[in-house]
C-alpha cells in the first residue's frame, strides 16, 4: 500500500529524470499542506486541527470511524470544509488519493458538485496525477532561471579551460568574467527561489513564481529567518558534495574498485546513487521546501496583519483560506531566530548591506559545493550544471558515457557467448556392403 512517507519510493523516483518530477510534485503538495496547516493553527480552529493531528491509537473497531473523523475537514468553516484540500490532515500520497472522491465545492461554479465518472476512474491514481502536475509546475519556472544560468557557468568552465589549454592569452578574461556573471546571476536568483517556490506551491499556480515584488516584500518581513534557510542550503549542500565527489576519489591508493567489471561498476553506482537519494538528497530537498513554506506562511500572515502586503497580492486560494479562517486582522510578528540576538548585539540589525554580504558569502559557498568542487573532482557534462539537485529536480542517477558503452559491450559479449552453438548437420553414412 502507498504509505505517505514511503522513502524507498522517493529514492527510486529520483533515479530517473522523468519520475523525479513526481518527487517535486509531492514536495510541492507537502509545502502547500505546511502553509495551510500553519494558517489553521493560527486561527480559531487550531485546537481542532491539533486533535486530528494526534497519532491515531491502533484499535481495530474504532479505526474506521476515527479515520473518517480525522479525514473530515468539516470542522473548518465554509468553503474550506468541502474544498479539495486533501493534504491538510493526511500527508500527501504518492499514488492513491488521500481521501476517495466525494462531492466538493467548486470555486469557479460557486456550488457543490458531484463526483463524476471520470473522477471515479482516475481516483486510484489521483495522487500520481497530482504529483505529476505539481511536479512540472514546480520545476518549470525554476528551470527558466537556473538552466540559462547553469549554461553560462558551464560555458565559462569549458571555454575558459579550452582557452587556457590553447594559451589564448589575448582572450584570457573570457572564462573568469563569464564565470562571475553566471555566479552573480545564480546567487541573485537562488536567493529568491525558495520563497518563490513556496509562493507557487501555496497558490497552486506556476505563474506566481514570478511575483518577485511580492516575494521580496515577504523576504524582507523576516530577513534573518530567511537567511537561516539559505544557510541551511549551504549546510546540506556539503554532504551532497561529498557524495558527488566520492566516485572521483574512491579508486585512489590501494582500492580495487578500478578493476570492477562494467556490470559491477554499474551496480555500484546505482547503489551509491540510491543511497544518496534515500539518506541525503530527497530528505534534504523535501525539508528545505517545507521550511520555506513555513516561512512563507508566517510572512503572509504578518504582512497582511501589518499592512505590508495586501490581500489582492495573494492568489484566490490563499485569499479564500485567509478570509474563511478570519486571519486578516491577525497581527503576528514572525518568530525571531536565536542568531538575530547576535546580529542586534553587533548593531547590524536591519542592515541591508549585512544581509546582502551574507547572501553573497553563502551563495559563493553553495556554488562551490554544488558545482565547482564536484566538477573538478569528477567532471560531469551539461545536465549536471543546469540542475542543482537541492533546488530544482532531485534527479541523481546517471551513468558516465564510457561506462555505459563498456556495459553495453559486456552485455553483447555475454549474449554472444551464451548463444548455443548450432550442431553440425549429420550426414548419413552410406551402408557398407
Amino acid at each position, binding site marked *: 500500500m502507498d504509505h505517505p512517507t514511503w522513502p524507498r519510493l522517493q529514492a527510486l523516483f529520483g533515479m530517473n529524470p522523468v519520475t523525479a518530477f513526481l518527487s517535486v510534485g509531492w514536495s510541492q503538495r507537502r509545502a502547500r499542506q505546511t502553509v495551510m496547516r500553519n494558517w489553521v493553527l493560527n486561527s480559531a480552529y487550531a485546537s481542532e486541527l491539533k486533535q486530528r493531528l494526534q497519532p491515531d491509537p491502533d484499535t481495530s473497531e474504532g479505526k474506521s470511524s476515527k479515520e473518517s473523523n480525522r479525514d473530515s475537514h468539516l470542522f473548518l468553516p465554509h468553503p474550506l470544509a468541502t474544498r479539495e484540500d486533501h493534504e491538510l490532515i493526511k500527508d500527501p500520497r504518492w499514488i492513491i488519493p488521500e481521501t476517495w472522491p466525494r462531492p466538493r465545492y467548486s470555486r469557479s461554479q460557486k456550488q457543490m458538485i458531484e463526483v463524476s465518472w471520470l473522477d471515479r476512474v482516475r481516483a486510484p491514481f489521483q495522487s500520481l496525477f497530482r504529483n505529476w502536475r505539481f511536479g512540472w509546475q514546480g520545476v518549470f519556472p525554476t528551470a527558466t532561471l537556473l538552466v540559462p544560468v547553469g549554461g553560462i557557468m558551464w560555458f565559462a568552465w569549458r571555454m575558459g579551460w579550452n582557452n587556457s589549454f*590553447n594559451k589564448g592569452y589575448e582572450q584570457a578574461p573570457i572564462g573568469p568574467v563569464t564565470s562571475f556573471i553566471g555566479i552573480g546571476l545564480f546567487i541573485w536568483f537562488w536567493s529568491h527561489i525558495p520563497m518563490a517556490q513556496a509562493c507557487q506551491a501555496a497558490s497552486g499556480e506556476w505563474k506566481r513564481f514570478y511575483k518577485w515584488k511580492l516575494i521580496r516584500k515577504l523576504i524582507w518581513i523576516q530577513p534573518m529567518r530567511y537567511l537561516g534557510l539559505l544557510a541551511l542550503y549551504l549546510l546540506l549542500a556539503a554532504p551532497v558534495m561529498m557524495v558527488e565527489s566520492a566516485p572521483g576519489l*574512491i579508486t585512489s591508493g*590501494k582500492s580495487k574498485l578500478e578493476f570492477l567489471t562494467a556490470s559491477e561498476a554499474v551496480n555500484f553506482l546505482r547503489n551509491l546513487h540510491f543511497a544518496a537519494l534515500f539518506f541525503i538528497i530527497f530528505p534534504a530537498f523535501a525539508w528545505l521546501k517545507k521550511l520555506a513554506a513555513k516561512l512563507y506562511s508566517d510572512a503572509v500572515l504578518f504582512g497582511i496583519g501589518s499592512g505590508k502586503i495586501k490581500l489582492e497580492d495573494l492568489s484566490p486560494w490563499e485569499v479564500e483560506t485567509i478570509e474563511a479562517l478570519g486571519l486578516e486582522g491577525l497581527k503576528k510578528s514572525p518568530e525571531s531566530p536565536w542568531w538575530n540576538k547576535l546580529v542586534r548585539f553587533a548593531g547590524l540589525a536591519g542592515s541591508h548591506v549585512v544581509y546582502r554580504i551574507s547572501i553573497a558569502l553563502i551563495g559563493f559557498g553553495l556554488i562551490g559545493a554544488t558545482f565547482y568542487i564536484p566538477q573538478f573532482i569528477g567532471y560531469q557534462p551539461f545536465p549536471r550544471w543546469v540542475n542543482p539537485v537541492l533546488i530544482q529536480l532531485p534527479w541523481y542517477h546517471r551513468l*558516465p*558515457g564510457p561506462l555505459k558503452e*563498456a556495459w553495453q559491450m559486456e552485455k553483447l559479449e555475454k549474449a554472444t557467448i551464451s548463444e548455443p552453438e548450432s550442431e553440425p548437420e549429420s550426414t548419413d553414412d552410406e551402408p557398407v556392403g
Partner: protein
Amino acid sequence: MSDLNDPTPASNYQSKTRRRFMKEMALGAAGVSLSYSTLGQQTNSAPLEEVVPKDYSGPNVVIIRFGGGVRRRETIDPVHTFCPYTLKKLAPRGTLFPQMKIDDFEDINTSHGEGTLNILTGKYDKYQDTEQAFLQERFEAKVPTLFEYLRKNFRIPESQTLIINGEDRTQEEFYSFSNHHLFGVNYQSEVLSLYRFKTFLLREQINSGRWEGEELATKQKQLNELESKDYRSKGLRNQSPEILSFWETWREHYGESGLVNPRGDRLLTELSLWALRRLRPRLMMVNYNDPDYVHWGIKSHYTRAIAIIDEGIERIVNWVDQDEEYRDNTVFVIVPDCGRDSNPFLSTPYQHHFNSPSAHEIFGLWVGPGVRAGDMVDREVDQISVAATVGQLMGIKTEFTEGPVLEQVFA
C-alpha cells in the same frame, strides 16, 4: 620480441629498494642526512673518489618527459593510441618497455614533480614542499640528478645541459640540481622556458632605462615577483652568457609580446629545436605537460595534448636525423612522469592521477645508437631505472641511483 628469460632479479632490487625507502622515511622526517654507505646497500659502481672532469665523447641524450601523466592506453596501445608516430614509426627503431611502472610504496605520490625527479635521480623519495605549503611542489632532490653526474665527470658547460620547461609548472625549473653536498648548484643544468625569457626580458628592459618613476617601480616589482619564484637561489644566479645570447636571438625573432611564438607544448618543441641548433646540448630534458589539463574534465585536452607531444617528438627526431653531428649520435629516452587513473565511475575516467593502480603504469622507449632496435621487453621494470641506464649509456657513474640498469636496452 619479448625478453622473457631475463635473469635480472627484478624482485630482489625492488625488495631492497623498498626496505631502504622505508628506513629512509623513518629517519628522514627529522632531516637526518643518510650516508649511502651506512645502509650497506649494493652500489652500481666503485666507492666515491675525487673526479677529474674529462672531455665528453659519448652520445647525446634527449629525455622526453611524456607528461603530465598519460595512460598506456592512449599512448602505446596500438588500437587506442593518439601518438602514432612515437608508437608506429619511432618504437620499431628502438626498445620499448610497455610494463614500466612507478613502484607503489605507501608514501609515493604519482605526480609530475615526483615523476620528474624519479627519472632524473634514479631514486624514489617522499618529496615535500620546501615550505610545507599546500599544493606547492617546490621540491629539492637529496641525491644528484643526471645533469650533476654528467657535469661533474665531464667538461661540459652549463649551457649544454638543458631542461626545457613549460609555463604551467615553473617550480620544475628548479629541479636542475640537488642539495647533495658532493654535487649541487655548481653542476646544475640550464633551463629554457617562457618564465626565463620573461625574466631576461624584464631585466633587459629595466636596465636599458625604458621606464622611469612609478612605471619603473612597478616593473621592478614585477621582476622581483618573477625572481621570487626561484626558491633555490632567489633569482640571484644569472643565466650563462650563452643562454643570454640565446634569448637575445629569440627576442629578435619572436619579439617581446609573447604572442608570436608557439604556445603550450608546441613552445617546448620550438625551444628544443632552437637549443639543438644553437646550444648543441649533450643532455637535454623536455618537460611536456599539457595532457594534465584533463584535470578540468575536458577529454579533448588530454587526447589533443598527446597528439601535440607526438608531433613534437617527430619534429625533434627528424631534425636530429638530418644534423650531421647529432645523427647516429643521439639517444632518445621517452618516458612519462606518471600514469593516470582509469576510474570507471567518471565521465572522464583519466581525469586525475590520484595514486590509483593505473596511475603507476607507464612505459619507456629507448631509441638511438647502441640501443637494441625493434625490441619489446614485456616485463615489469621501474621508472627509477632510467637514470642508471642513461648513466651507463653516457659513461657516467651514478652512485646514488637505486634502480638497476636496463641491460636489455643495449645492443
